[in-house]
């Protein structure tokens, strides 16, 4: 070690840098204005150290990975030596050998870290052959496309899904040259527990995981003069779309987006912040009713579609606690197809409703059968920010220079409260702004609830509503939400109102947002700031003060939670299976006249002791001597988790099975069938 260097410093490429708690050499190098290339490093995920792109030379130690080497005082680090360059070039060449080379027709063309790094290293030849075997692409979901031929096995998606969401749908499988990253049993994304959030695709450095594009259908709609195309723009995208056109993250480009969409050919452009205001009122009123009756508390927010699917699959005991209010996207969809069409004097089937979203799971949400009436969906097309950017580029619009345009009237304007829906804590703050005035009857002077803001994974606050103290919690990232729910179930924590967002930072960190930043956390911080700025600049900052909202209640909905509102703006939830089509065969009937019994051993039923019921059932078949006529199997979910344990006898599902009623059900539903059939 060099003794001339100041006590707590290292030297990076000849520049002395004072250490100040940097975790690794990457962070130290950044202070010397050196951005070391990485594939598998993300500051919010665990350090994996596998891609080896970040190799640097440390004096006296040789080549070291910058991501997983802590800086030590006195270190002399060189980030660009001939050894480093040779190693990086070789590594990239190996990656390219295993990677599809059809860049020009890849979704991530010009937006791909592998491509960018290869270009910066000046790789002009791949000396190795191409992969012969072509693996099938997975296009099974509405949200994402997985192309294993473009995967470079960096494992970013594996860790994102495990660490941020604690779902873990991907893992490394096989070994050596056969290694793959894939879901269990090589299944499709639609067949596993994917919540379609796209956090994997946000971190994928190549085109192996991309947003499923609906750009073509959007073009078809806007170019068809027979159709009236109505867009809604989600809060989060207004502070991010500019990033793709050279504007800094967080810059508010709402007016430019409206102008661009109008140029493209959208007939009407509205603001999802408007329907967020609607959500605030409907959801808050629902909350008051529950609070008064002291039932179905805590109330969970339901605007995040990934959280909703996750809860439907895993928390049957909380389905009643989810707010029945639809998400802002679906509320606006419903307003378009049930109210605006009339005002526009256009038949419902001639209206195409397009939402511009930060989110890949919104594509799934729009296809939920609850939101499709007579085969007409409330939201026809969901474009993520990425797809919207592509359309703007296809139309050759000079986005940066566009003069801003306002939203269309009368339902265009959203309040500042609606705008902050896009950031974690925003829904809670928006609801508090409404709730305070509604419950105390006094005007809220200081509208900013700073206590619920910030990026801490779980935040809590207590608000005094004229004597009634209400405890709220805000959580983002499903892994954090799972911890919170666990504590709530065990009685360790209690809340009245819980806001859950699947993505870190809330919608500003959505799976469909613009990609590729060296410092993603900083981008999230600036996007959040952008939304809070947009709120501050709003004339109207409370949902209840929004004149368009007043107009809609007057003209259509009458009052919050009215029958019309319940019908058009609320929904319900279902237990959903996590694992599809798997059955463990335990006893096979040999007779043609048989009864099939399936006992659910999915998580919920398993924990309620369904395995013991299974044993008991096998005993019963023996006791009655009908083993040869009763098939018994174990299945993974009958989608009635709240009422479990469940069993299915032929096609009929029986719930609430216990040792006490099993014999009776067996006699009535199984034996009777066998007797009937023998006669």
């Amino acid at each position, binding site marked *: 070690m060099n003794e001339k260097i100041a006590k707590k410093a290292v030297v990076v490429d000849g520049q002395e840098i004072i250490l100040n708690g940097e975790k690794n050499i990457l962070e130290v190098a950044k202070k010397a204005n050196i951005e070391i290339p990485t594939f598998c490093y993300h500051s919010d995920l665990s350090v994996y150290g596998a891609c080896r792109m970040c190799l640097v030379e440390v004096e006296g130690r040789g080549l070291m990975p910058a991501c997983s080497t802590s800086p030590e005082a006195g270190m002399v680090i060189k980030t660009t030596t001939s050894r480093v360059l040779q190693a990086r070039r070789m590594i990239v060449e190996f990656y390219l050998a295993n990677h599809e080379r059809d860049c020009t027709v890849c979704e991530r063309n010009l937006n791909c870290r592998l491509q960018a790094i290869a270009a910066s290293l000046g790789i002009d030849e791949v000396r190795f052959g191409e992969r012969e075997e072509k693996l099938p692409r997975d296009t099974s979901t509405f949200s994402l496309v997985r192309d294993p031929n473009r995967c470079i096995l960096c494992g970013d998606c594996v860790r994102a899904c495990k660490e941020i969401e604690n779902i873990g*749908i991907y893992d*490394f499988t*096989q*070994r050596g040259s056969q290694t793959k990253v894939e879901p269990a049993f090589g299944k499709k994304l639609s067949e596993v527990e994917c919540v379609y959030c796209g956090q994997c695709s946000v971190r994928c450095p190549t085109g192996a995981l991309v947003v499923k594009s609906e750009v073509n259908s959007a073009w078809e709609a806007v170019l068809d003069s027979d159709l009236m195309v109505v867009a809604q723009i989600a809060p989060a995208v207004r502070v991010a779309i500019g990033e793709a056109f050279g504007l800094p993250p967080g810059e508010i480009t709402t007016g430019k987006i409206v102008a661009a969409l109008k140029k493209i050919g959208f007939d009407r452009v509205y603001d999802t912040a408007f329907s967020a205001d609607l959500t605030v009122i409907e959801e808050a009123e629902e909350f008051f009713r529950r609070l008064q009756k002291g039932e179905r508390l805590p109330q969970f927010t339901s605007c995040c579609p990934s959280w909703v699917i996750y809860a439907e699959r895993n928390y049957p005991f909380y389905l009643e606690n989810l707010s029945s209010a639809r998400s802002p996207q679906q509320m606006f969809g419903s307003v378009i197809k049930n109210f605006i069409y009339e005002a526009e004097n256009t038949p419902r089937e001639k209206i195409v409703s397009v939402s511009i979203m930060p989110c890949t799971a919104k594509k799934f949400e729009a296809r939920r059968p609850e939101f499709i009436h007579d085969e007409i969906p409330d939201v026809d097309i969901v474009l993520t920010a990425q797809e919207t950017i592509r359309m703007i580029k296809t139309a050759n619009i000079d986005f940066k220079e566009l003069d801003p345009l306002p939203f269309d009237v009368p339902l265009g304007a959203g309040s500042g409260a609606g705008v902050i829906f896009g950031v974690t804590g925003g829904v809670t703050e928006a609801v508090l702004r409404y709730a305070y005035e509604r419950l105390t009857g006094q005007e809220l002077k200081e509208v900013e609830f700073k206590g619920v803001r910030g990026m801490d994974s779980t935040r809590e606050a207590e608000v005094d509503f004229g004597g009634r103290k209400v405890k709220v919690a805000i959580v983002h990232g499903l892994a954090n939400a799972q911890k919170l729910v666990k504590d709530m179930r065990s009685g360790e924590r209690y809340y009245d109102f819980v806001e859950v967002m699947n993505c870190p930072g809330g919608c500003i960190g959505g799976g469909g947002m613009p990609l590729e930043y060296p410092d993603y956390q900083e981008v999230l911080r600036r996007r959040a700031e952008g939304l809070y700025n947009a709120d501050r600049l709003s004339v109207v900052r409370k949902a209840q003060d929004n004149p368009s909202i007043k107009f809609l209640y007057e003209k259509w909905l009458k009052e919050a939670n009215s029958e019309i509102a319940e019908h058009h703006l609320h929904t319900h939830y279902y237990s959903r299976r996590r694992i599809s089509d798997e059955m463990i065969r335990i006893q096979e009937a040999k007779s043609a006249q048989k009864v099939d019994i399936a006992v659910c051993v999915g998580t919920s039923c398993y924990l309620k002791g369904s395995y013991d019921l299974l044993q008991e059932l096998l005993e019963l078949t023996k006791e009655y001597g009908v083993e040869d006529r009763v098939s018994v199997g174990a299945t993974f979910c009958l989608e009635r988790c709240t009422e479990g344990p469940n069993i299915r006898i032929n096609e009929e599902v029986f719930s609430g099975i216990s040792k006490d009623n099993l014999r009776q059900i067996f006699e009535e539903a199984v034996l009777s069938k066998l007797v009937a059939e023998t006669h």
Partner: protein
Amino acid sequence: MEIEKESLVLSRQFEKVNAILRKYSHNVDNLIAILQEIQSEYRYLPEEILTYVATALQVSPAHVYGVATFYAQFSLEPKGEHIIRVCDGTACHVKGSAQILKAVRENLGLREGENTTSDLMFTVETVACIGACALAPALMVDEEVYGQMDEEKVQQLVDHLLGEGEKVDAV
């Protein structure tokens, strides 16, 4: 009668899976040991049992699948009661192990892409070396080693395994 026997086996196997999970206190740290014991029960790792194991251990099915596919000792395909391992190490390879493999497969009536007979009696695999280079070309039937094989000897051996013809002496 056959089906009744199969039912018994199925039910006994599933009870065993639960006993194995209990034995390892439902702890995912013991996943490899759990999979080994389940495989010795089923002779392979059925997909739905792996999913059940993941549910019981409260980990994702992808995690269990990743471990199950990493190790060559685990099989996700049903294996035959007897495993025939044809050695394809250097010595055996040079001495014509390809012919031996072909002969084994033909005599068992295996079609291309098939490694297990339809009656689940035999599975044919190749291995890199069984340490019997002096006896090349060699193969193993379960734990028994047979050396200096040729096509005729293979036929004799398979006939015997199928319950016909004379016994072939193992090493």
